[in-house]
């Protein structure tokens, strides 16, 4: 985006007038040459490829860029042609529109790029000719859908960083929803999965007949009745775990009502409720029949696995989304069953000892036949019955085969969507990481630039480090802009490391007393140089000393710190600190004092003449800028202090 950014640079710099007038490198004035051409053949140079056309051709559509006077903005007087820095291949289609009146859509180009070109040249997409319109619309819709999916995934995606200071509830909920975020959540996830499996297996094993110790016992009992205590204990343990999990989820849920209504919580409730009902119900023989029925519901625990398995969730979702197809299948099957059952009943009515005792009895035969199961427990014996039976089985195949592909395609679409979402999420993380890296690159570029002494005002060429000199014009101006902002707010940009160091230093140890000298200042503030506005700080301090009103202790400390640091902006590695930079320092001092024209702390004009005297015993002592005038007279301290800080 560097090119795009460069075009906005004048705007950014102009807007900076709003907050800071600092000395800046004067730019060479642009030459202003203007020639006019009256030829009838226009040359349009699109990224090097020359297109020539009559002026009249372009004038055919006066409400577009090329047809109106807007193209004069792109006229290059030196070469006498209109220069557009756009894609020449796409321009071909645009120009053909002027020539033929029909806008065609290029088949092999990205639809988005084509759209952008159309927008640039002022062509409305509706101008796309009939031959290409259908395809254009389809591709555009597809693109839009894909982009919408991207945005949805972004918004719905689990943010890797939880906002600091989230409550226990939020953390718990997040742990439940995304078990891979923390180890404890993962452990919990696996433990519950294990217990679900144990519970289901116990249910199954309970009914297996196991041989008793005494082979002589005639009756074989199922295991559940042989070891009732063991199974009861296992059941209790599982239910306790499930209950605990359910209650925790209920506590952590951000919206309890919604959670209570969700499918998963219903499954949970159904899984644990029978146990409690069984506890409450007394061991009465009358009620035990109902009690046994309740035990059937224990099998629903297997559905709890759907939290653990994504495939299961997809299946459930597919069935939900194919509800209409399933409904259709059911309806048509029902119709067919009724019809064929009736027919078979009447066909077999005359036979003795027939199984087809009533129409509902014939339902069973019809279902078994239509699904091609054919148990053989009910068989037609009359010829008419056999004929209709065969028709029944043939049509059964058809009826079932019709909706199944729709369901299958739905399932595959949803499944692939899920795959894509996972892939996109993984790609997104990489993308974000790369973007963050690039962003920190610009930040670091500026910090690097500062460290290499780029802030020195109009320093002589040879002294500047190579990296400083080799910056592009855009970079230079951008860094200047950032520097201006620093001066406005009297704070400097720094990186995370020094920030955390400073943070640590400010709170406990920042309370430096006034009497400490420069050299004993905490040098651990990283490699950052220069305090910002020393004189301003001093001035503020003096004014604050005069007016006791609103200055808190904290800000005094800040002033101390500000004042006490080396404020020379000259680069650390230079040894020629004393001589030349001081002149530029003087200039810096003056300009820095003004601090952002209007917004930043404007220096009270009245104080300037007063304070300039005490602060400058000698040229180099401006660099002192500390409240303690005693340490002002030691410019030679600076090279050393500079070097120390550079570590």
């Amino acid at each position, binding site marked *: *985006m560097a090119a*795009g*950014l*460069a*075009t906005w640079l*004048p*705007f950014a*710099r*102009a807007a*900076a*007038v*709003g907050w800071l*007038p*600092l*000395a*800046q490198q004067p730019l060479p004035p*642009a030459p202003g040459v203007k020639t006019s051409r009256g030829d009838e053949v226009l040359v349009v140079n699109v990224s090097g490829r020359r297109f020539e056309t009559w002026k009249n051709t372009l004038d055919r559509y006066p409400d577009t860029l090329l047809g109106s006077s807007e193209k*004069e*903005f*792109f*006229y290059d007087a030196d070469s006498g042609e209109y220069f557009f*820095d756009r894609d020449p291949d796409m321009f071909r289609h645009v120009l053909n529109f002027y020539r033929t009146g029909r806008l065609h859509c290029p088949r092999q180009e990205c639809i988005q790029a084509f759209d952008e070109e159309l*927008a640039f040249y*002022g062509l409305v*997409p509706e101008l796309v000719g009939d031959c290409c319109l259908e395809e254009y619309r389809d591709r555009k*819709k597809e693109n839009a859908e894909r982009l919408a999916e991207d945005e949805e995934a972004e918004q719905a995606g689990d943010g890797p960083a939880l906002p600091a200071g989230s409550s226990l509830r939020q953390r718990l909920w997040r742990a439940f929803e995304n078990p891979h975020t923390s180890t404890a959540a993962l452990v919990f996830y696996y433990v519950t999965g294990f217990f679900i499996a144990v519970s289901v297996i116990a249910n199954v094993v309970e009914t297996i007949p196991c041989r008793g110790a005494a082979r002589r016992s005639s009756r074989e009992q199922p295991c559940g009745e042989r070891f009732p205590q063991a199974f009861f204990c296992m059941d209790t343990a599982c239910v306790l775990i499930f209950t605990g999990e359910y209650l925790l989820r209920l506590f952590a849920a951000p919206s309890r009502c919604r959670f209570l209504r969700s499918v998963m919580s219903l499954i949970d409730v159904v899984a644990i409720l029978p146990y409690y009902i069984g506890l409450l119900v007394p061991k009465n023989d009358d009620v035990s029949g109902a009690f046994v029925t309740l035990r059937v519901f224990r099998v629903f625990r297997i559905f709890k696995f759907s939290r653990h398995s994504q495939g299961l969730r997809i299946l459930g979702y597919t069935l939900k989304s194919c509800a209409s197809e399933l409904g*259709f299948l059911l309806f*048509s099957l029902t*119709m067919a069953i009724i*019809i064929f059952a009736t027919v078979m009943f009447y066909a077999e009515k005359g036979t003795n000892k027939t199984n087809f005792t009533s129409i509902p009895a014939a339902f069973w035969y019809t279902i078994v036949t239509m699904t091609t199961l054919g148990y053989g427990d009910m068989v037609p014996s009359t010829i008419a019955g056999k004929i209709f039976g065969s028709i029944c089985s043939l*049509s059964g195949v058809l009826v079932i085969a019709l909706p199944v592909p729709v369901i299958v395609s739905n399932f595959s679409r949803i499944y692939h969507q899920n795959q894509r979402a996972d892939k996109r999420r993984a790609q997104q993380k990489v993308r974000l990481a790369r973007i963050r890296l690039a962003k920190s690159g610009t930040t670091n570029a500026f910090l690097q630039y500062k460290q290499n002494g780029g802030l020195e005002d109009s320093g002589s060429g040879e002294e500047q480090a190579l990296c400083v000199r080799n910056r592009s014009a855009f970079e230079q101006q*951008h860094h200047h802009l*950032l520097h201006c*902002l*620093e001066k*406005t*707010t009297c*704070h*400097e*940009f720094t990186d*995370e490391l*020094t*920030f955390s160091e400073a943070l640590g230093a400010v709170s406990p140890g920042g309370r430096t007393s006034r009497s400490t000298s420069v050299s004993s200042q905490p040098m651990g*503030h990283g490699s*950052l140089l220069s*305090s910002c506005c020393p004189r301003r700080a001093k001035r503020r301090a003096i004014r604050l000393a005069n007016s006791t009103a609103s200055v808190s202790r*904290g800000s005094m400390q*800040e002033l101390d710190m500000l004042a006490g640091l080396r404020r020379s902006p000259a680069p650390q590695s230079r040894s020629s600190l004393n001589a030349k930079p001081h002149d530029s320092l003087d200039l810096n001092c003056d*300009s820095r*004092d*003004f601090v952002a*024209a*209007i*917004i*930043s*702390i*404007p*220096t*009270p*004009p009245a104080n300037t003449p007063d304070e300039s005297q005490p602060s400058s015993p000698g040229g180099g002592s401006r660099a002192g800028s500390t409240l303690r005038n005693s340490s002002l007279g030691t410019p030679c301290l600076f090279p050393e202090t500079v070097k120390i800080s550079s570590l």
Partner: protein
Amino acid sequence: MGAVMGTFSSLQTKQRRPSKDKIEDELEMTMVCHRPEGLEQLEAQTNFTKRELQVLYRGFKNECPSGVVNEDTFKQIYAQFFPHGDASTYAHYLFNAFDTTQTGSVKFEDFVTALSILLRGTVHEKLRWTFNLYDINKDGYINKEEMMDIVKAIYDMMGKYTYPVLKEDTPRQHVDVFFQKMDKNKDGIVTLDEFLESCQEDDNIMRSLQLFQNVM
């Protein structure tokens, strides 16, 4: 049986057709397109030469083919210039200052007019523009809350990692000092005249305003 199934399936498919045609939405989006006045007129109205206007417009058109900039674009641009902090608030105030007609979008003319004032205007014009920027509700007065908002927005641009560490009341102190200087009659608001007067008294401000003359 087959006929019944056929009718049933056709019923099903009718339900699946999209209920709304999205063509109207597309039309709406593509209609917004603005073309600026001619080059000669703009040259007469602003202090830029034709060449400069050409350069400006090319860049503008490249970034905003529709011919207008909206607030989001402003914020994005500023965010790219100041990646350290959050430039969106300041961009918002800037946008309001650029959008003189309060339409919610900045056309090329507005853009160039403002640039012309800021880069090539007289000191008086620049100061007046800056006053307009600070006067958020455009009532002709700057009060402490407005100033506080602006200063806070500027400090936001610095971001979190600053040196020295940004304190909570630094912006407020900034504003207090500003008001002490600008507010002549100490009534808590700064009028345009007070503002112009105070700035013109300060040689430093005057001098620094000249320094952006050649930015292009």
